[in-house]
């Protein structure tokens, strides 16, 4: 019964040819037929592919030219290094943490979106705090708390255990360990899962769950048989993001892994690039290709989930109903709050204490002071300009990238199987697995000089951010588009709407929740960007990432902590405003009513 209901809703009709029947020719196999919307999509796609490939090409081509001749020797040399150990340890760390993050993040998203245990807009943003913190600050936060000797939590626990006569020399926790590293990764990955799965849950048709409950299925049966399959695309996208960021993450292992004696691919790769002059591109290439294999594998697997199409799609007409948890309501809330406390409040508290204390160590309770905050805000001539620039770049870069991602996703979805869009799609996603550092160097070589002359402009930063972070937006929009399915678009087309109109009136509003989370993702990443910025930003185009690096190289943990706490608060305010605004609009039914009417009219 349940399964039947599921199948009926999820059945994908054979694609209906849109508009006049295309003339079959040799080219039709390469690229789909073009109309105005199609032409715009192709232009956007071509531009993005150019931006992704050209700078990279300028660097990579050099690598494969030996004495003016094309040579594959560098590829062979790329693998002349011990690879097995580092690959295994990375897979263990990323695999375990991604699984944990998927469990925790989905559970939190479900509690928040589909049950009456939600705290409203606050609980939408709270689990995102670890994600608003620059990862390097989060890593430092974990060390401040759980370093075996002087970690603040350890010191506190030891003073309690001493008072009951149990003496510990070190610990009990040790951040420099396998579990320390894995949990730090997990906390970093959970927000991605939470964001994407929340958007997915918001989009599913609650009548399915309702039907299931009416038919007598319990909470868990409904969850496993209806809700989970319905959000399969989001779960796939979340898993993909978790794996991908796990492999790409550099800041956290750079602080924790060396003392845990664990080798991690990303850390090794960045060391090859930044530790030596000239950068050891060949060796980095070897490690990069291993990452490509895993991230590419995850991508293909995600694609299979999307294509399987056995998940429920939106069929127009939604209501909101939330599962009543009954006696489980408060335990669920405590679970939620407990996670938020450990993952966010605790490290933020640790960072704030260190900022107030002036340094990490013996707490001088009577002498806590705001010097570090004052130093960050007022004694830094470029700070205000940096905040404005980063904020603007995050806002605009986020909007452009998410808009482009939405157009691309739908275009790719429509042109399924065609060769050229597929190639372009692959090229645009390529930067995902390449260190931002290399892309930034490519940008300098390609665009800073004539004829583009973009050096020290905000434009070059904007373009580089878009190229580096667009693939992340694509993961989120892919999931959303797949959830919407093609039925509505086809219905709209049959009724005579052009592609642009369908996009504007149907697909865009329906994807809105996912697009907003994708935007948030982009905004936060750009705001705290640390790899592209040091190469492309300067005194005429300063950004916050520079100040963070400056604090790391040249300041103190107190200044780093003050800066991170401030940055986190700014991002919190921005996200609460945006999410709150979207909730408000949704409650007033703005996007959905338009859609429903649009769909009904269609």
């Amino acid at each position, binding site marked *: 019964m349940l399964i039947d209901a599921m199948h009926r809703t999820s059945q994908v009709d054979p694609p209906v040819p849109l508009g006049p029947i295309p003339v079959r020719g040799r080219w039709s196999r390469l690229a789909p037929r073009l109309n105005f919307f199609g032409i715009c999509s192709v232009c956007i796609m071509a531009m993005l592919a150019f931006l992704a490939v050209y700078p990279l090409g300028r660097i990579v081509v050099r690598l494969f030219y030996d004495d003016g001749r094309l040579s594959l020797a560098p590829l062979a040399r790329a693998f002349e290094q011990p690879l097995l150990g580092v690959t295994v340890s990375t897979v263990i760390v990323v695999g375990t943490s991604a699984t944990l993050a998927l469990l925790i993040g989905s559970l939190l998203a479900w509690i928040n979106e589909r049950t009456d245990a939600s705290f409203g807009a606050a609980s939408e943003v709270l689990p995102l705090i670890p994600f608003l913190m620059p990862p390097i600050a989060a890593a430092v936060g974990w060390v401040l708390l759980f370093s075996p000797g002087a970690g603040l939590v350890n010191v506190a626990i030891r003073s309690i255990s001493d008072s009951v006569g149990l003496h510990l020399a070190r610990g009990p926790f040790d951040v420099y360990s396998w579990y320390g590293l894995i949990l730090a990764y997990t906390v970093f990955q959970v927000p991605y899962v939470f964001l994407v799965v929340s958007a997915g849950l918001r989009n599913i048709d609650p009548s399915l769950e309702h039907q299931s409950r009416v038919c007598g299925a319990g909470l868990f049966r409904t969850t496993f048989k209806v809700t989970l399959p319905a959000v399969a695309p989001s779960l796939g996208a979340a898993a993909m993001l978790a794996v991908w960021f796990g492999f790409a993450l550099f800041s956290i292992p750079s*602080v924790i892994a060396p003392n845990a004696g664990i080798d991690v691919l990303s850390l090794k790769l960045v060391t090859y690039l930044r530790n030596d*002059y000239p950068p050891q591109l060949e060796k980095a290439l070897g490690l990069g290709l291993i990452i490509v294999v895993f991230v590419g594998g995850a991508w293909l697997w995600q694609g299979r989930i999307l294509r399987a199409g056995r998940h429920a799609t939106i069929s127009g007409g939604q209501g909101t109903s939330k599962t009543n948890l009954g006696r489980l309501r408060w335990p669920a809330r405590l679970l939620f709050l407990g996670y938020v406390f450990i993952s966010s409040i605790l490290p933020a508290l640790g960072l704030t204490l260190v900022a107030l204390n002036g340094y990490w160590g013996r707490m001088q309770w009577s*002498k806590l002071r705001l010097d570090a905050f004052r130093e960050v805000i007022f004694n830094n001539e470029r700070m205000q300009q940096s905040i404005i620039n980063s904020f603007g770049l995050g806002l605009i870069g986020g909007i452009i990238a998410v808009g482009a991602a939405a157009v691309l996703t739908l275009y790719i979805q429509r042109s399924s199987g065609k060769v050229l869009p597929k190639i372009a799609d692959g090229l645009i996603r390529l930067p995902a697995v390449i260190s931002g550092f290399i892309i930034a160097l490519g940008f*300098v070589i390609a665009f*800073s000089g004539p004829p583009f002359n973009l050096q020290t402009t905000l434009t070059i930063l904007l373009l580089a951010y878009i190229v580096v972070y667009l693939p992340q937006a694509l993961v989120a929009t892919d999931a959303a588009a797949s959830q919407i399915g093609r039925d509505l678009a086809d219905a709209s087309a049959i009724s005579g709407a052009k592609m642009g109109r369908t996009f504007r009136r149907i697909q865009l509003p329906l994807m809105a929740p996912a697009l907003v989370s994708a935007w948030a993702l982009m905004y936060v990443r750009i705001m705290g960007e640390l790899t592209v910025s040091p190469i492309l930003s300067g005194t005429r185009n300063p950004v916050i990432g520079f100040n963070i690096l400056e604090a790391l190289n040249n300041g103190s943990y107190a200044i780093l902590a003050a800066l991170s706490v401030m940055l986190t608060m700014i991002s919190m305010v921005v996200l609460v405003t945006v999410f709150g605004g979207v909730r408000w609009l949704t409650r007033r039914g703005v996007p959905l009513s338009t859609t429903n009417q649009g769909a009904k009219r269609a």
Partner: protein
Amino acid sequence: MKNSKDSTKKPLGSFSRRDIFTLCGGTAMMMAAIHPATPFIGLAKAQQESTSSNKAMEDLIAGAKKEGTVTFYASPINPRIVSDAFTKKYGIRVDLLRIGSSELNPRFAAEAAAKSVAADVIVTPNDVNFWNDMYKEGHLVNLGEAGVPSYKTYPADFLRNDVKAPIAQIVPFVIAYNKDEVSASTAPTTWQDFIDPKWKGKIALGDPKANTTYAATIVELADKFGEEYVRALGRQKPLYYSSSLPLIQAVASGEVSLAYPPNGINVELSVKQGAPLGVVKMRAEQESWGGEQLLGVSRNAPHPSAARLFAEFILSKEGNAIMNADADNWGVVVSGGLPIGHEHYIPMKAASSSKERVNRIIALLGL
């Protein structure tokens, strides 16, 4: 081409008039450089030279003022003080970009390759490959030909690499200790003390896998005291940190008792905030070494005169003293040499050590 062939064919010992002239001039200049008041040179000639160099200096200042600004890429911890002093003296704005060498070097190289040079002057550590490449590829000028007066009298022991880049700053590598855990009398004062087993588990080191300079600090110990020393150091089970700040904070927090090599200014900042940190004073007979920050001027500098004037300022006694005023850094021209007590300074050979050597050292540490 033809000329050079001719000159090689010339029998040894036969000099053209121009050669002799050049030779004399060169010798005179060298003498003047060694000792400005050498009696060989007539008073009138000395005056003439000084007026001509004054004239050159005035022209340089005028040109620099016309350009009005100089762009400075700097990796030292506190380049702000010398930049401000320069602006105050000449009214020329310094567009200062302080970035770590791991960003500065590839960025400078990429910008030069893209023909969009932004930096007029750079100061970045002695990474042999970087300096030699930049000179070979024509992105840096040899200061001897650039008309930077103070460079001519710069102590030759402190010029590095093919481009003969002058050392603008030496950051001595020392040991920091936590005053709560260790008293000044029990802190190590020789390198042998450092491997005393009583420090087992209480030492923080710069991670040689993460950073070439940190690798060099260990290679230096191996060169000096043998590989057994490095093995003993590895047996101390040190904690490793990839940059100076975590290293300092580890010792400030009491996570470890000793840290090598901390960065002076990080120590100073933490001490100001109340951290119980001290820096070990090695006994005078102990060799000392440090990170060398070299100065370079872009060949295609957007502000050529201001670039030269700024380089001149940093290499002058006045500017160099300002640049190295804080945090125990050494400027080699301040007192015509190294600080008293550090006459045993050895230039870091390790800066040019091979990858194999570094890997061997990392293996000896047991990493």
